[in-house]
């Protein structure tokens, strides 16, 4: 299933032109389809040039797979048309919900982690995969509150992925953030993830609020040392492509490529696929 290898970077409009003139480009890129479905004239040429030159993974934000309601078919049609148009084989989304009763929050909200939810989400994943004619890769999302749980997060995720027979996008920063906020050991969590179920990994920055003992998954900061180290340890066990995700407070591409170089070194050391 993996047609992308090595290290990736999230493509953002803020550095689209600079990206084109990069001499050494990332091995692959990740894009958010919601940001490109209506590609404006001002970006189209550059965007299509990039899309035709590198392996691409689409990473959505609005599917709301955990919502108790059926998937919004018209939204899914737009996603499928976009994926087909650019021949994107890999599509990932968040294990969360963002809309309910037709109301959009545009945020990734936490799910009740129960067996009923495992089956509900698993069945929805299967329907989405049938419709899209491609696998739906699920990401472990960050959460600040566990509204109603009868199982641990890692068991919840493993059971969904197994029930739907799909793969996981393991966000290493989210494991670190959730571990700190909810008091579990990130290494122990990662040990429980079956490596064969992981399609690829994310690494990102977060914001720390020491007074509130809270880490916020902002994707707006540089990656901290502890997350780099966690990634290094994770790569010993899970040998898959990794990418840097930066959505907010986006620095110049040069700066981001420094982080990318650091990632490449770590990955090369581990001989990652």
């Amino acid at each position: 299933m993996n047609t992308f290898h090595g290290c990736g970077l999230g493509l953002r409009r803020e550095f689209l032109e600079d990206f084109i003139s990069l001499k050494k480009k990332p091995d692959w890129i990740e894009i958010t389809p919601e940001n490109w479905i209506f590609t404006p004239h001002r970006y189209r040429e550059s965007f299509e040039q990039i899309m035709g030159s590198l392996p691409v993974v689409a990473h959505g934000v609005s599917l709301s797979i955990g919502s108790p309601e059926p998937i919004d078919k018209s939204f899914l049609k737009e996603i499928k048309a976009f994926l087909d148009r650019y021949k994107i084989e890999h599509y990932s989304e968040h294990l969360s919900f963002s809309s309910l009763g037709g109301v959009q929050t545009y945020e990734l909200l936490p799910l009740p982690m129960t067996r009923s939810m495992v089956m509900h989400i698993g069945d929805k994943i299967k329907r989405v995969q049938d419709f899209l004619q491609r696998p739906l890769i699920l990401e472990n999302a960050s959460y600040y509150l566990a509204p109603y749980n009868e199982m641990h997060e890692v068991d919840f995720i493993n059971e969904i992925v197994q029930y739907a027979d799909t793969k996981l996008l393991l966000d290493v920063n989210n494991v670190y953030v959730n571990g700190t906020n909810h008091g579990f050991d990130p290494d122990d969590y990662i040990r429980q993830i079956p490596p064969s179920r992981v399609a690829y990994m994310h690494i990102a920055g977060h914001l720390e609020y020491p007074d509130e003992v809270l880490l916020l998954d902002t994707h707006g900061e540089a990656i901290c040392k502890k997350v780099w180290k966690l990634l290094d340890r994770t790569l010993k066990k899970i040998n898959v492509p990794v990418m840097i995700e930066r959505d907010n407070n986006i620095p110049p591409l040069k700066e981001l490529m420094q982080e990318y170089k650091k990632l490449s070194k770590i990955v090369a050391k581990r001989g990652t696929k």
Partner: protein
Amino acid sequence: MKTETAVMKRFVQIIQNDEALSNPFRNRLQVYRDMVHFRFVETIENIYPILCKKLGPQLVHELIREFIAKGAKNPFIVKMSQEFGDFLRHNPKTKGYGFLEDLLWFEYSELDLLNRDFNEVKAGFDWNTHYILSSSSLIRNLSYKVYTGEFESPCIASLILYYNFDEKRVYFEEITPFAQQLIEQLQSMTLEGAVSVLAQMYELDTKVLRESVETLVKKWCNQRILIKLTEV
């Protein structure tokens, strides 16, 4: 799933509304409430910067809270700002702002044009051509010259907003009532026909009129404000 659905519904309800939370500074529900609120604020302030400045931060935040409570429907966040515009039009708190409608149009239209894709080609000049307004242009009669910063005294004006293909930016241009009439006539007849109608309407000599119309239409074709009907 009944319990789970009820939990999720209650969660969204708390985020959407302002009901008091126990220990709000350490309550993680407040974290989610703030995250959603700031996401809306960030998007709306980016799209309506002048409007937000005119209304003031207190009223803007109050209106955004009300809008969140009412519920945005579009899964694409950029399109949420259009819903917010409709919400403001019907909100009693914005009744005293006469310029609201014009400013909403002016600011949203810029974003709308910047986010569009265009396939239309530049048209050549020909008296027998049926020109129409391109999809890279928008035209409107305004009651306030919001584009010059005039928000107090009403003053009727016509404005064209258009996408500049070379600079990939949106520009605006105030046009005369005559130019506006010309564009209106062009929507249903050839340029030759429109000139005849306008010559009669303004009691002008057709030959004299043709000279000024030619200059204007050539400029608009060059800017891709006008395109040939057949090319749509």
